[in-house]
């Protein structure tokens, strides 16, 4: 069965995703060739966040239900892959008390990633069964509950996850070029999902639940699909995080990361993939600038005062201003190919 209702949807999705891929890839390639070494790391982190934002978009953008648990699924993806892939001799050192023989096996990077995707996807499916039955604020509170529960398990089961201490020794599998390719793949997945039959019906239900119901949209099923697909992308982002950094802990998978990525999504506009990409780029570069200002630099002989907290203020301000002025984000429903493909006829 074709996932698209019309060939026009496919064409739009294909060109849109291709154009975004070009943008994303050229930033990466530029940095690979011209950037300093620390830029590579900065940009890698930005790509991981892009994956998170895309994973978030798949559910939030198509259903208009605020999800605050995404960092938890990212964490699950990272930890499961890390537990599988870390060499036994390191695990004996770092997880001496691990149950179920978790410190007595090791797998190659690909199998570890697949296991991580499967397990996280399954957990997403299970939690999804709960989420899709609720609407609006009720669903959001359950996502907060998921975040708190997962974080609490990471923090407490130190014999498996090490809590706030470092889970170290994960081999470095990925580099910048691998994550560029993964990002492109995920951009295509997210964009195809948005324009697919499921995506269109879901977006209808996010605009008007009752009316979509009356038009034959199986809202529960589609939300569950979006939630699970989002969970898989988030797991992938977590794997990318672990496979590059080599060391993880429970700390980065909690509220501050939730808000950072949420701000990225809603700045660009959560209803469109273009918006998700633009928001990620703007916030990543914007925050670098703000951080520079924060420490009180001297610019052109002018000494600025130290302004700690400026980045948090900027992030909050972005969220508030977008919500107040333009709650569809910078681009709303706009997708990048509309710049080039003429989709509108005159009335």
């Amino acid at each position, binding site marked *: 069965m074709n996932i698209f209702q019309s060939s026009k949807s496919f064409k739009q999705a294909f060109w849109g995703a291709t154009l975004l891929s070009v943008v994303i890839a050229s930033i990466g390639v530029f940095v690979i060739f011209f950037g300093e070494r620390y830029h590579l790391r900065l940009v890698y982190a930005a790509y991981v966040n892009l994956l998170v934002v895309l994973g978030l978009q798949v559910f939030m953008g198509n259903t*208009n*239900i*605020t999800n605050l648990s995404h960092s938890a699924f990212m964490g699950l993806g990272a930890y499961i892959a890390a537990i599988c892939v870390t060499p036994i001799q390191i695990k004996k050192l770092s997880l001496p008390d691990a149950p179920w023989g978790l410190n007595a096996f090791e797998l190659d990077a690909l199998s570890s990633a697949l296991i991580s995707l499967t397990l996280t996807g399954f957990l997403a499916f299970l939690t999804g069964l*709960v989420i899709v*039955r*609720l*609407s*609006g*604020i*009720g669903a*959001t*509170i*359950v996502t*907060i*509950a*998921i975040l*708190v*529960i997962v974080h*609490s*398990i990471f*923090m*407490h089961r130190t014999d498996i996850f090490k809590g706030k201490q470092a889970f170290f020794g994960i081999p470095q599998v990925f580099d910048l070029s691998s994550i560029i390719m993964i990002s492109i793949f995920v951009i295509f997945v997210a964009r195809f999902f948005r324009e697919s039959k499921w995506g269109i019906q879901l977006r209808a239900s996010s605009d008007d639940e*009752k009316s979509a119901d009356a038009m034959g949209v199986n809202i529960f099923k589609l939300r569950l699909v979006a939630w699970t697909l989002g969970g898989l992308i988030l797991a992938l982002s977590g794997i990318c995080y672990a496979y590059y950094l080599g060391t993880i802990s429970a700390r980065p998978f909690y509220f501050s990361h939730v*808000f950072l990525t*949420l*701000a990225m999504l*809603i700045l660009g506009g959560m209803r469109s993939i273009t918006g998700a990409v633009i928001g990620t780029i703007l916030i990543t570069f914007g925050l670098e600038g703000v951080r520079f200002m924060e420490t009180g630099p001297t610019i052109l002989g002018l000494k600025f005062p130290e*302004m*700690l*907290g*400026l*980045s*948090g*203020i900027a*992030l*909050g*301000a*972005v*969220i*508030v201003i977008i*919500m*107040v*002025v333009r*709650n569809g984000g910078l681009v709303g429903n706009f997708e990048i190919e509309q710049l080039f493909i003429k989709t509108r006829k005159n009335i």
Partner: protein
Amino acid sequence: MIDYVVQQSLNALSFGAEYALIALGLAIVFSIMGLVNFAHGEVIAIGGYCMMVMAAIAFRNPIVIIIGAIFASVIMAVFLERIAFRPVRYADATTGLLTAFGVSLILQNLFLLLVSPRPIAVTSMYFLDWPIKLGSIRISSLQIFETVATLLAILFLVLFLKRSFLGIAMRAASLDFEMVRLMGIRANRVIATAFAISGLLAGIAAIFIIARRGAVDPTLGFNPVLKAFVACVVGGFGSLTGAVLGGFLLGALEVGMLVILPQSYGGMKDAFVFAVIAIILVWRPEGILSPQKEKGDKI
């Protein structure tokens, strides 16, 4: 053993009172304009910082400090409504929620920027706290004050909503906002009053929090409000009775978890509390006491 049970029950009651007090502040705003005000925590923190400033400029009179802190919270709540929440008044709940998150982020970091990331001692409310002996049980006066203040706040709210003109308008608004507008009551006044009341409740909460903690820091309000938010949802969002019920339920749940869970699982307290919350929501998606919506003939 009996002492222990009574002691822990009293503890649960005072935990619950604090959550209920904060949850009421959230619920009153939600019932009128459907806004989940996550910035409520920072309204509480403002009360705390106000006490810090007053102590620094040598105000000693506790009554003055208390009034000042409550006043600061009320002003802050009304101010936030005016600049941040009025523009999103008619937007959907998600927009409001995210706006509130943004406001909360801004304020937390402003405290960090203008004051300090570290806790600053504020001891001017210590006088509220002394031990009281009831037979073989010792409790803190603060627990009693807090429970009583919460009950008084509930009583005051009930009277206000039932007896005063604005209160009646607010009750009507929580059922059908358009209707109140058609009746010629200015929406701005109704909503500003709701925020002022939530600020008042936040101010009272700030006094008790500071009396216990003796210090103020930028994230002072975040955790209590997260819990209160949960209490609201569990009780039935928008229902004031539900908020109070949810608050006390959460208090009981939290103390219960600490008591029941074995030491090796003690760290998972939050996980268990939130799991119970999630189960309650699946069982009753609108919360335990969700307000009856007038569905009527039309959909």
